[in-house]
């Protein structure tokens, strides 16, 4: 009763909050504060200057991080969002500032990351006139945003920003862009903020049908060789515990997509590894042997399925999914359980029978033994002279206890990281999965460390991707962000080189890199730095890095022409995965 009264009182206070006459730009900052934003990443410029002027006044309440490029601002906001589950915020000016956000926005869209981007725009009377730094950012960002909107009157600001945050974080999350003309930023109006709790035409979470749960439960209970493949949907729905309970009750082996990594500890006995192009041998091969495939919060990306015509054709498919557009998009399902994963897994658990699948699970273990012999052993415990990426990961695992958040970039090192990193804490694998954005890791690690300052955040990056956003070392320097940066340097764009070796007769077109002195560059930003090229120094270097209270840069010179295996060649079936 008391609680109820409190609720109504709270509501009243909200509704009856007095109106205040303030400028549009101050309203922007006040809206961000009302949404609980504590950090924003951005870059100032002409058309967003009034908002920056307000940020200056509110600098004790909201921390603005000046990145060295707008793309870095979006990736930092993504890193912040991915580790915390909160909405990341990026800000930029009009024209080039706005267009520089696009890569990060597209990345957030395909990886379902909640993000709000705010851009300044030329004054409304100049719209469409090719004014200085004018670009149609709403038009440009339309295909890569969950929602976007242009504000030309200050009075729209509270409602539109409230809606932006609501849309970004609800349902299947995604990026939202709000473009605000400069005159709207200057305009004064009567400000009053009200949080958004619904949009008429938008149903964030579809209803879970009881019938679909019954059908799915029956299918799971009668399965002889069931297999779970979970994705990021489990993390986004905070359904890690529910998934674990389901696995443990039913004894079903469970594999994960790259973005699903870390939802369940990598050491869990029913965790059978990663699916997909460079995933583990067993779950890929046995995808084409299982009788029921239970997909949870994943979208059957082509890097997961390989050749669709030969993907799990023998299996009945159950798809737990929040986004109805994903059902039957790539793989035809027998039962679709729509809704929020936490909700639907909670509901299905009592309907599931307690079981074990010993002989079926043994099949996974047997295939793992083959993969270990042919691939993993040589990756993690090499006998050859040159350093492998795998042994670096192995050393990081040992020294971090699998508790660090790992931010990886895109390419060979990313696949090695996702294959070998130990994960014992959810939301610990931050990487660009869907878009494959080189340059993601360094700025994303900054955002992740700021959102979770008490966690160890280690960025693992290739020499190619590192140089795409290397300027963010400046942000690390200025903000004193204690991220650990490991560059696995093979002087190649390694993944492309691997494909050239395997599929283009070793014609290494533009993949070899003449690299600068990375240690000197880091030192230029006064970041502690060290280079390792011999095995005997690796352990002590990583120890030094882990012990450092500040940012630390470690370059590891690895074998130039190592390949990542296993591999499902493009266009091949998952069961035709190659071990060499």
């Amino acid at each position, binding site marked *: 009763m008391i609680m109820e009264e409190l609720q109504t009182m709270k509501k009243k206070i909200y509704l009856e909050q007095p109106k205040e006459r303030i400028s549009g730009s101050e309203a922007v900052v006040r809206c961000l504060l009302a949404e609980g934003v504590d950090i924003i990443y951005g870059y100032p410029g002409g058309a967003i200057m009034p908002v920056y002027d307000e940020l200056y006044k509110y600098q004790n309440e909201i921390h603005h991080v000046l990145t060295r490029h707008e793309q870095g601002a979006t990736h930092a906001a993504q890193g912040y969002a991915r580790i915390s589950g909160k909405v990341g915020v990026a800000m930029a000016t009009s024209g080039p500032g706005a267009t520089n956000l696009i890569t990060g926005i597209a990345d957030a869209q395909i990886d379902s990351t909640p993000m709000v981007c705010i851009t300044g725009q030329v004054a409304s009377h100049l719209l469409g006139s090719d004014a200085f730094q004018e670009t149609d950012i709403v038009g440009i960002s339309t*295909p890569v945003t969950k929602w976007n909107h*242009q504000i030309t009157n200050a009075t729209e600001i509270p409602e539109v920003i409230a809606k932006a945050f609501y849309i970004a974080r609800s349902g299947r999350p995604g990026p939202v862009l709000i473009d605000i003309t400069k005159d709207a930023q200057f305009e004064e109006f009567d400000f009053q903020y009200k949080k958004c709790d619904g949009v*008429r035409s*938008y*149903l964030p979470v579809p209803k879970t049908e009881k019938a679909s749960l019954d059908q799915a439960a029956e299918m799971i209970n009668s399965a002889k060789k069931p297999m779970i493949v979970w994705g990021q949907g489990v993390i986004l729905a905070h359904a890690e515990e529910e998934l674990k309970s389901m696995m443990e009750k039913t004894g079903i082996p469970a594999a994960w997509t790259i973005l699903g990594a870390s939802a369940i500890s990598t050491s869990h006995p029913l965790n059978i590894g990663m699916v997909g192009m460079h995933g583990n041998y067993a779950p890929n091969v046995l995808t084409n042997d299982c009788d029921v495939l239970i997909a949870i919060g994943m979208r059957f990306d082509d890097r997961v399925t390989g050749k669709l015509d030969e993907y799990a054709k023998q299996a009945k498919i159950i798809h737990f999914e929040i986004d109805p*557009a994903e059902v039957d998009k790539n793989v035809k399902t027998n039962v679709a359980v729509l809704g929020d994963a936490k909700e639907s897994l909670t509901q299905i658990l009592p309907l599931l029978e307690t079981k074990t699948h010993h002989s079926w699970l043994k099949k996974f273990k047997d295939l793992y033994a083959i993969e270990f012999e042919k691939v993993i052993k040589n990756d993690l415990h090499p006998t050859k002279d040159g350093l492998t990426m795998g042994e670096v990961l192995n050393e990081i695992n040992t020294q971090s206890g699998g508790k660090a958040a790992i931010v990886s970039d895109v390419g060979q090192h990313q696949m090695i990281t996702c294959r070998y990193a130990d994960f014992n804490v959810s939301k610990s694998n931050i990487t660009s999965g869907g878009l494959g954005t080189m340059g993601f890791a360094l700025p994303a690690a900054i955002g992740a460390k700021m959102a979770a300052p008490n966690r160890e955040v280690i960025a693992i990056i290739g020499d190619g991707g590192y140089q795409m956003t290397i300027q963010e070392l400046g942000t690390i320097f200025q903000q004193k962000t204690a991220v650990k940066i490991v560059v696995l340097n093979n002087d190649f764009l390694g993944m492309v080189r691997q494909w050239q070796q395997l599929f283009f007769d070793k014609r290494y077109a533009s993949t070899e890199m003449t690299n600068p002195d990375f240690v000197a560059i880091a030192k230029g930003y006064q970041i502690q730095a060290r280079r390792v090229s011999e095995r005997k120094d690796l352990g002590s270097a990583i120890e030094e890095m882990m012990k450092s209270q500040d940012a630390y840069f470690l370059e590891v010179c690895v074998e130039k022409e190592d390949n990542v295996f296993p591999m499902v060649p493009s266009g091949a079936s998952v069961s035709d995965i190659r071990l060499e």
Partner: protein
Amino acid sequence: MEIKELFTVSIYTENHIGLLNRISAIFQRRHINIESLNTSVSEIEGVSRFTILVKMTEKEVKKIIGQIEKQVEVIKAFYHTDDQTIYQESCLFKIKSDLLFEERQIQNIIKDSNARIVTVNKVFFVLEKSGRRNEIELLHRELSVFGIMQFVRSGRIAVTKDEMKITEMLAAFNN
């Protein structure tokens, strides 16, 4: 290989700037050519209706519908085959007025085709015809013998034989 068919896609939406761009981008991504497109108000105040004619496989159109419905400001999207809808197109012909008096045949064509004369002046007259695509094409063929100064045809508009239940849907969103 599945056969491509004509589908009428009907979309109920909020009236929001940029939504046309958002919807057309979904077709563009999959390299689908839009045969015709019409936007208008609908039976519900404040709700817009898109009528889009596309030629594609049913499997593909289903996926497109999902991706359209996913857009925040889309209330509901449907697809229908021709026999599930009542549909029409409309067209205008601008023709020299002399012909109306000199060519007796034209008057018969107008009468037989149920076309309507919208306006006549000394120089030209304008003929309007609504109907199925083949009726309009027939009229176009018949009149082109005499010379057409201007011709324009609208996109398809269609109502469905089934109920759309949008009002109920909007009520459900509000709850």
